[in-house]
């Protein structure tokens, strides 16, 4: 099972976990991103996430498919929020269910690492004295 969503709505963690759970899996690893109150010590007011939605969904599905094939996963779920998020909010949930836990851990880490490198989603950090598109400049 692969479940990929981009939404402006609040992500429901329990619902995500229920979706990946299956009776033939022994472990679920879940990565939950949260908005931090600072970047290198500088106070963050909020983040703004923007996605190239059609392409981002395709890229995320590719990653999920790669992971299912490589680690023989039961289920992969990737939910990503867009819009304005505040400190403590959850921009991303990745949940992976597998028969054995090593596969779940490896796959979950691969998914978040690769998502951050290849999926066309952008975040702007809003500070008290300005804003910055993360990673845009060297």
């Amino acid at each position, binding site marked *: 099972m692969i479940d990929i969503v981009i939404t402006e709505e609040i992500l429901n963690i329990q619902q995500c976990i229920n979706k990946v759970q299956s009776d033939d899996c022994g472990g679920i690893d879940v990565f939950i991103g949260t908005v931090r109150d600072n970047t290198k010590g500088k106070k963050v007011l909020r983040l703004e996430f923007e996605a190239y939605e059609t*392409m981002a969904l395709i890229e995320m599905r590719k990653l999920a498919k790669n992971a299912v094939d490589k680690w023989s996963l039961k289920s992969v779920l990737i939910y990503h929020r867009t819009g304005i998020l505040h400190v403590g909010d959850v921009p991303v949930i990745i949940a992976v269910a597998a028969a054995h836990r090593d596969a779940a851990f490896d796959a979950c880490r691969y998914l978040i690492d690769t998502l951050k490198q*290849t999926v066309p989603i952008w975040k702007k950090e809003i500070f008290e004295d300005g804003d910055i598109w993360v990673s845009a400049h060297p």
Partner: protein
Amino acid sequence: MTLRILAFGIAKEILGSTSTLVELHAGATVKELRILLEKQYPRLQKLASFMIAVNNEYASSDHVLQPGNEIAIIPPVSGG
């Protein structure tokens, strides 16, 4: 041919718009598009990098563009 180019994130701010039209010769490649864009919008050269996506896939620089392609400027991503 006239191509419509979508822009996201900081590229949207550099272009001042979510999309722009560019004029290129038939058979032009992604590389030629990049050169044109960097000339029209020099701030693109200041980015850590940017990619071009064609029909929702990352395209290599020798990829040949076609009229009607969905083309987008992809500045460095930062999701998650």
